């Protein structure tokens, strides 16, 4: 997984980390086990991707956490925004 800079306080500064799972939800659950608290900063309590977060499986934008990663092996965690 490729980690945007605002999230690297959780990964000890690492820009690339490893997690396991066949779907985006499984990957994020494993990520949160490894880096507690990280998931909630990206995904709200209703399971929605937060407004200024984007997830890409390879080059395909993820629309919902139930999506399979398919053949992609890299999930990009992108922070988009944020004004002045």
């Amino acid at each position, binding site marked *: 997984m490729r980690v*945007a800079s*605002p*999230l690297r306080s959780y990964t000890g500064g690492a820009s690339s980390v490893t997690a396991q799972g066949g779907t985006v939800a499984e990957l994020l659950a494993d990520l949160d086990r490894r880096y*507690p*608290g990280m998931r*909630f*900063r*990206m*995904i*709200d*309590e*209703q*399971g*929605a991707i*937060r407004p*200024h*977060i984007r997830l890409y499986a390879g080059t395909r934008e993820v629309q919902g956490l139930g999506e399979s990663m398919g053949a992609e092996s890299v999930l990009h965690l992108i*922070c*988009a*925004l*944020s*004004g002045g």
Partner: protein
Amino acid sequence: MGETIWIGTRKGAFALRPGARGRAYRLSGPQFLGHIIHHIVQDPRDRKVLLMAAKTGHLGPTVFRSTDRGRSWKEATRPPAFRKAGDDEKARAVARVFWLTPGHSSEPGTWYAGTAPAGLFRSVDGGDSWQPVAGFNDHPMNAKWAAGLATPDGEFLHSILVDPRDARHLYLALSIGGVFESVDGGADWAPLNHGIAADFLPDPAVPFGHDPHRVEMHPAQPDRLYQQNHCGIYRIDRPGVTWTRIGTAMPKSVGDIGFPIVLHPRDPDVAWVLPMDGTSVWPRTSVGGKPAVYQTRDAGRSWRRLSRGLPERQAWLTVLRQAMCIDARESPGLYFGTTAGEVWAGANGGASWRRIAQHLPEIYSVTFAR
């Protein structure tokens, strides 16, 4: 560390500490540079403990906790979050943690948090894990009380007040929604808005839907509450149920609109407000470009202007609802922070003012710790 003025800003947290023998305040920070800090609150039951309400432009809301007077911080394991919505329910997600209040002295680990959209949350482990207060968030009237008439920055739950005589007696305020009271620890709530104007509504005589900007309970006389509202300054003495508009005694040329209200730590007749221009399109800046704090010493029957040391003209300050506080000295000092990043200190109850910090980011909260 002694006395500290904690500054929450749109771009991080700062601290101001007085120098020895009246020397200039020392500014430290930023901590959490780039984070949006809505509130930093010390635990009066254990002064080493502070909680901070934070988010960033990208990342969701959370709470940080310090057990060493703000030297180091640890994120809450379970930040405030609404319960999972049912299939036929409106899904609510916390966008920001806006307000923090320590619980009763008999409940040392208890804290309350208010959020946007309007939600009430409780922690019983010192702010590490938070649970929704179902009595408010799922109250049958909640959808009407918190109807989504949001301020431009969102719909806030704020001014959570705990009666020092009774841990189960609580108040809270919604912008927009009004003031609400619980006498059973948050299991049930009722509006407490009679007497408050709601000039912006088609029916101003509604039981809720008002816009309290800040509500304070006097610590030594908890039956007395003061309120700075969108529509004036008010006081209520419980068990009375009707607020009295005490802002009518303010000079007509100044009016009684503003965001913060601050109470004297010991004298229940003494309070301070910082009037803003609430005319026409609501500039929400110092009236006439001449900033002034107003003090009452008779529970709102009269007010006096305190502006010595503040700019005399062309100063268009905005001071938000959490951005004014008072210290615990015998002759207490007042502090306010502006959206333009200045902090002002008013010694001896605001008798004279001096700027103690500038060039900070937009200030959201100013709180006192000792």
